């Protein structure tokens, strides 16, 4: 559980660090619609997540349906860590 909490906190911190946006109160919101993410930003985010969590995110999976909310990103990272 603490592990999971960490992933969430880290993801929020990375987004804040990269894009200067605090998403902690909008975990379920579409980050593309909110103007936080675009195609460029999602790639930067992926690279940062890969470095932080020592995972490899398949590029083909970075679609706007799978990685569009902070919650989904947290879930995605957890899945890839357990894979």
């Amino acid at each position, binding site marked *: 559980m603490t592990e999971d909490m960490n992933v969430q906190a880290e993801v929020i911190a990375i987004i804040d660090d990269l894009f200067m946006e605090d998403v902690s109160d909008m975990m379920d919101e579409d980050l593309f619609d909110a103007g936080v993410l675009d*195609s*460029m930003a999602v*790639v*930067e985010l*992926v690279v940062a997540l890969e470095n932080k969590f020592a995972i490899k995110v*398949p*590029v*083909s999976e970075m679609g706007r349906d799978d990685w569009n909310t902070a919650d989904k990103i947290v879930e995605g990272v957890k899945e890839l860590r357990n894979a």
Partner: protein
Amino acid sequence: MTQWLENLPNWQPYGDPTYFGYLLLGLIPIVIGLLYGRRFQVYEALFSFTFILLMFSGSKWVQFYALIGYIVWQLMLIFGYQHYRKKADQGWVFYSAIFLSILPLILVKIHPVFNHGKMSIIGFLGISYLTFKVVAMLMEMRDDVLKDLRVWPVTRFLLFMPTLSSGPIDRYRRFEADYTTAPERSVYLDYLQSATWNIMLGFFYKFIVAYYINLYLLIPFKHAALSQGGLFNLPTIGVMYAYGFYLFFDFAGYSLFAIAISKFMGINTPINFNKPFLAKNLKEFWNRWHMTLSFWFRDYVFMRFVLMMTRHKVFKNRNVTAGVAYMVNMLLMGFWHGLTWFYILYGFLHALGLIVNDWWLRQKKQKNRARKKAGLEPLPSNWFTNAVAIFITFNFTMFTFLVFSGFLNQLWHH
């Protein structure tokens, strides 16, 4: 075989209302089957084959052989690469496969430049759209998200009749999921309803609006502009708007047909246009205009290029990375349209526009953050600012379509 092919009539996809008559007649068994949750695969294949054959029959028979050769070539590449990918994953093999799959398209694009505009004999209607499908598949195979492909499903995806000639560009995994599970009756009934509506709207767009824009605006404006001559004149502005709207109604109309026929066949082909002239900025425009093409370039060119540059830390500044990636992406799209100065300039202008657009969005974000800190309201965003944004975006895109149309080439060199 050749003589038989030559003697057949030639039916261009969605060319005229009678075409729809035959198409809908041929669709009846498929529709009945799907209403009962069944796909008649053999019938569907025969139906598709017949209409594809008629696209390339008559005087276009050479293209039929070109298509067959092309499909065999791409299948060899896909399954050759799949065989290799099971054992290894070297960059140069992947890049070679990509190069070889684009090679026919490159030859077809280069050929007219050196042969007085004559088309290459290996070209056929739809070659570029097929290339997009294959390249995407190879990339997803490298990512290991596409595996255990079989010849028949891949062929069926590549040769899906409704979208063969000009898209929308579908993705293999999405298409295959639709194909293997016949839609539930309630879903399929919705498909039928939206398909009927799409065909009616498509008729209105293509055979009425686009037709009359061309007849009563575009052609007269062109005549007037050409007779006035010079570098630029007032009727050329008329050509600009008339062509922009003509292009939209013609292509959006075609796309609606392709989507409708897909839906009759139980395939939810993605949409291509979503009110593009209401976009508030250029980035949004590309989420609304020729969407399957723009998303293809976004996913398979832009994002992968950014990823490569970010991983290797090519540029320190992220805005430089984005700018370079926009240039590569849009110039490539320009080249894809054809090797003429106006297509390439069209790509260049859009890249430039996207860079400026990004810069503007950054400025706005920074200003608003500073204002928030200072306890001020964010910059105004209301109906007026939106209207101004739509106006600027609309006129910029219309200007790029004038470039794209090649009319300036005609005006300056006639």
